[in-house]
């Protein structure tokens, strides 16, 4: 009871704080210095229509590499902790219903296609590698739900993940040699602004990030499903 009262008082205090913040907010009328630089120069420097994608992949590409590394680290820790139990023990899970089976067989291909679309068009429309990878992983979740007894070979996901990770760092190093710096996208010609084959290396990097994130999340989810046998 005392604890609930304490939580209530804390939340009331936060409400007071937030109301003060909202009252003081009066919008911005122009971009600040950094944002104005990105807005002015990203069309000529990077050639990507989506400025957010240009910032994430090129201007702050090293940070994105850090993000991918954090995700890789968490996937590695998870596969270390959730050890694969012996596969011989039979889990008696009821087969999913006919409705779920036929709906998922139609939906999964559409979900995968949408994920590929999102990371392929990352430099033109909202989206990018991370988002597309997460959509692909959600397709894998549907696959795991509808076919619970199927054994999935996790090696394929590991191979895809490793190859795309190496290729991402490799493109970064090629950027030092052939273009301005680490992860510079001007290795390939910038192309015509606003078309699919433009913005130099950004589509390739988005594809690699999408494959890596998708494979990592799928691997984590499959590990979760396999480790259920422990309990």
């Amino acid at each position, binding site marked *: 009871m005392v604890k609930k009262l304490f939580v209530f008082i804390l939340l009331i205090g936060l409400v007071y704080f937030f109301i003060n913040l*909202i009252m003081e907010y009066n*919008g*911005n009328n*122009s971009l600040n210095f950094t*944002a104005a630089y990105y807005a*002015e120069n990203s069309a000529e420097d990077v050639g990507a229509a989506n*400025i*957010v994608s240009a910032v994430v992949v090129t201007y702050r590409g090293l940070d994105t590499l850090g993000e991918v590394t*954090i995700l890789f680290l968490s996937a590695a820790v998870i596969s270390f902790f959730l050890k694969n139990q012996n596969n011989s023990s039979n889990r008696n899970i009821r087969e999913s219903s006919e409705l779920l089976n036929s709906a998922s067989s139609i939906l999964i291909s559409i979900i995968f296609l949408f994920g590929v679309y999102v990371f392929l068009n990352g430099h033109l429309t909202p989206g990018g590698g991370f988002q597309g990878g997460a959509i692909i992983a959600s397709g894998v979740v549907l696959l795991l739900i509808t076919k619970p007894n199927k054994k999935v070979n996790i090696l394929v996901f590991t191979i895809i993940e490793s190859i795309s990770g190496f290729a991402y760092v490799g493109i970064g190093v090629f950027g030092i040699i052939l273009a301005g710096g680490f992860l510079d996208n001007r290795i390939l010609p910038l192309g015509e602004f606003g078309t699919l084959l433009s913005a130099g290396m950004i589509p390739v990097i988005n594809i690699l990030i999408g494959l890596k994130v998708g494979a990592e999340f799928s691997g984590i989810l499959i590990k979760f499903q396999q480790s259920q046998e422990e309990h």
Partner: protein
Amino acid sequence: MDFGIIALITGFLLILVGLWGILTQKNIVKIVIGFSIFNTGLHIVMVGTGYVKGNAAPIINENLLQKNIVNNIVDPVPQALVNCYCNWIRSYCVNACVYCEAL
């Protein structure tokens, strides 16, 4: 009432709901869900602070190229930040779920 205020109010409400969930729930999975709601609220507040009145999304099209780009888009930096930060938080959420599994 412009979009900036709406985004701030929505985000702060989500932050409060998530914090309430973290502090009062007993089930550890529900705590992780509260954490996730809390982060969604934070992201909405971050994107909302970059809003410039009456401007479009930071994606350049033919319409924007004819005008001055700088005066017609919202701030792309908070959106890029959320793009990265979201992924970071997601991996921590997954790690928290592993803790639940291990306990």
